[in-house]
């Protein structure tokens, strides 16, 4: 694996990059991810994103049941699609973030914003604390909405929403 770090440093920063051909992910009957890596067998592993907001499919840390890092997947695209999908499903479960499709209602009142939205996971009502604390701008067109309980809702591109939803959201950006 080529890195830009000086070789001397590479020796100390021992990152294990998981070779796609040596990985065999599978799903346990209970719906958890398992991994065979060469000789090693891990009955339960978990997957973490290094860059949950910007690089969802890259630099994925695979950890064993003691949360110890087994290695890092550089890019899920290097894996066969069914292997990648297994990992992706696990990631999507961990970083559960419904995508807002329509903003039905958004009312700012008493320092809180009351929302009614339709997400790709179904309709949802939630409350977020005033604008400053709850709207995280990820880019010029993308925002993340945090509700009072720490649930997250993604708006990947405000411009792609219907006119009414976009207008409601724009007042916050």
């Amino acid at each position, binding site marked *: 694996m080529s890195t830009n770090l000086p070789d001397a440093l590479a020796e100390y920063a021992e990152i294990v990059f998981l070779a796609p051909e040596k990985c065999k992910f599978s799903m*346990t*009957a*209970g*719906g*958890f991810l398992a991994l065979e890596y060469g000789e090693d067998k891990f009955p*339960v592993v978990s997957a973490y994103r290094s860059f*949950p907001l910007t690089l969802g499919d890259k630099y994925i840390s695979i950890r064993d049941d003691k949360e110890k890092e087994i290695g890092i997947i550089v890019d899920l695209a290097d894996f066969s699609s069914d292997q990648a999908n297994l990992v992706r499903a696990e990631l*999507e*479960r*961990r*970083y*559960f*973030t*419904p995508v807002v499709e329509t903003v*039905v*209602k958004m009312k700012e*009142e*008493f*320092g*809180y914003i*009351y929302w*009614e939205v*339709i*997400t790709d*996971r*179904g*309709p*949802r*009502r*939630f*409350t977020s*604390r005033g*604008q*400053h*604390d709850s709207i995280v701008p990820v880019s010029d067109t993308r925002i993340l909405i945090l*509700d*009072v*309980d*720490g*649930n*997250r809702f993604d708006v990947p591109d405000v411009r792609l929403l219907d006119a009414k939803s976009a207008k409601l959201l724009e*007042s916050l950006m």
Partner: protein
Amino acid sequence: MHQLEPIPEGVRQALNAHGITDAQIKLCAAGDMTTEGNFAEAWLVATEQELCILTGVKAVVPKDKRFGRKQVAEQWQEVSYRTVALSAIEEVKAQSLNGNGLLVITIGEQAEVACRYSNTMARKFGQFARLLNKLRKGEQLTEKDFTAEVYQPQCPTCGRLYPNPTRRVCPRCLDKRKLFMRVLSFMPRYKKQVIQILLCMFAGSLLQILSPYVNNRVFFDEVLNPAGKYAGRIFSAVLVMGAIQLVSIAASIAHGRINAELTARVVFDLKTSVFQAMQRLSLSFFTSKETGSLMTRVNSDATHLQYFFHDGFPYFIVNAINLIGIITVMLMMHWQLTLLVLLPTPLIVLCVTKAFPKLWNAFSRRWRHNSALNSLVNDALTGIRVVKAFGKEDTERERFMQRNTKVYQVNMQVGHIQAVLFPVMGLIMGAGRPIVLSIGGWQVISGEITIGTLMTFLSYLSMLYGPLEFMTHIVDWWSSCMNAAGRIFEILDATPDVAERKDPVRLPNLSGHIELNDVSFGYEPNKTVLENIALEIKPGEMLGVLGYSGAGKSTLVNLISRLYDVQEGCIKIDGVDVRDIAVADLRAQIGMVLQDTYLFAGTIMENVAYAKPGATIEEIIRACKVARAHDFIIKLPNGYDTLIGHRGQNLSGGERQRLAIARAILHNPRILILDEATASVDTETERGIQEGLESLVKGRTTIAIAHRLSTLRNADRLLVIDKGKVVETGTHEDLIKLQGHYFKMLEKQRNALKIRGVEVSEHQLAGRAG
């Protein structure tokens, strides 16, 4: 029947259909997601024998495409049902993932997901897991297990979600009138001023209304008119007008002055009580996410209330009187014309309610972008060393440009809105004038009304719209004031979790015996930081605590000094539960040197004397000598009088730590807690401090946390914590023999030194060379 939450009728029927009767249900909770991650309802119901997992949907019958509260028919439709025998379950765990949580049950070797839920429900399911484990082990659930209130995410009155379900205050249904009365209750202390203000306001309003009448009607019709009552008495008329003006100005000056004084006093009182209340609250109140921006919020809320007293309430009364007074006089003078003039009023109301929010929105956006810009400047300036060190001036300039452009854009937007809005408003408000002029003018000519009446009318007209506009947004404004008040009272009323018992045990002379029984603790519901810690520290003993970063060492001492309360188990000092000991006694006798040294803005002298305000100069110098701080202080040009800037940025890390140690030494506690107290100090100085401390530590219970093993050379006993559990305890020799964690740490530190060609014996490293 014990439950975590009430079961709705549809679900009850579904359960009954599966042969589960109400009496069998021991525990139940609703999740809000399917295991695939779609929003839907899922019920977990436990009887004494089994766990039932029931999922279903509420059939949504939309009246239009959007869904709304009233359009959701509460019709439960079952989707799936399965049961698991409790005896088959090995373990139940509430596992929190980043965006949601899983209730995982282990059957045999196999872990599976029983239920998935959003973070909203995390606390509830944490509790559910704990209770289900009890049930599984055949234990009976008692009332005590259900002390946590029934889960209720919505306000029962208006159906709105609570902004914070653990707090259960619905800002909408908050009794505004009660709040208002309570805000006003700050006023009676100043009865005299309030009465004075009211009198001034009445007088001022009266004169204000009178003045156009005298200036126009009386002057033109009675003075200038040869047939008038006061024909020709111009001088006296002007005198009267001047007098009215003078008295009116005097009243307004008096009002302003008294009001300013009153407001300042009320706000002063308010801030004082808020600050006092905050000091009383527990640490967890401040570190919870909920109150992240507590300080700014309290400040801005107090400012809001200040506006209320200063601009809002008095002006409301003034405007109300003016409005009623003016309209009454106008109606009396010429009711037909008055009604005509009032015609555009609805338009004004419309304009204010529809268009103004846009402007406010833009204002708040401008405010936000401005504060973003400010924080960037602030960041770049405080971090200027880093910026310079990495040569990143250009990047910073670029970032500044970006934000500044946003500010510029939003400024322009505000300008554009204003440029349209105000002329249009002016136009509507001015619409009354041509009406009055044309109809009135015509009537003047035909002799129906006098010219004075017309002029008076025009004057009143210009006075009318101001109060009208004010009244249109008073409602909005009132509710935002009441919210500010609500939040302030919330702090005033909050009961600290770490509260003193009613009749606390007084322990003015601790011996310093500490005992921990099965203590478990977590800052957040689903994440235990300490688990089943059992520990005894004898009076006068020095205990060294080691462990990897994040193991829970600081947390342990936070619990002992009762900055937080344990969740399970108990901590006893001298045989008394810390929760029963008078907080003042506890604080007076526990001294902490914290990992992150905090120095207040003030002199070195003041900082050291913080814990003991009456300390003599000699005491202070002695404490600084023990802490090895005296020498460096003396070398400073201003010595002990040196002003330490914000957080002591002009001192080195080790110097700051030594001041903190001196502070603790002066405090002279029975129990001394040193959390990485000498981590930033070189080993030589550390040894010096320790020698000084040794005499001091003698006879005192000391808990010292350190990563550098040599720091703990004097410890009577060592305790190794790993992932929240005590893994090893014993003397240095014991632990070496054990060849466990401690041994490994020792090896690693020795190897680290070996790399640099330093040969050290194990005893030297552990500081037992003697």
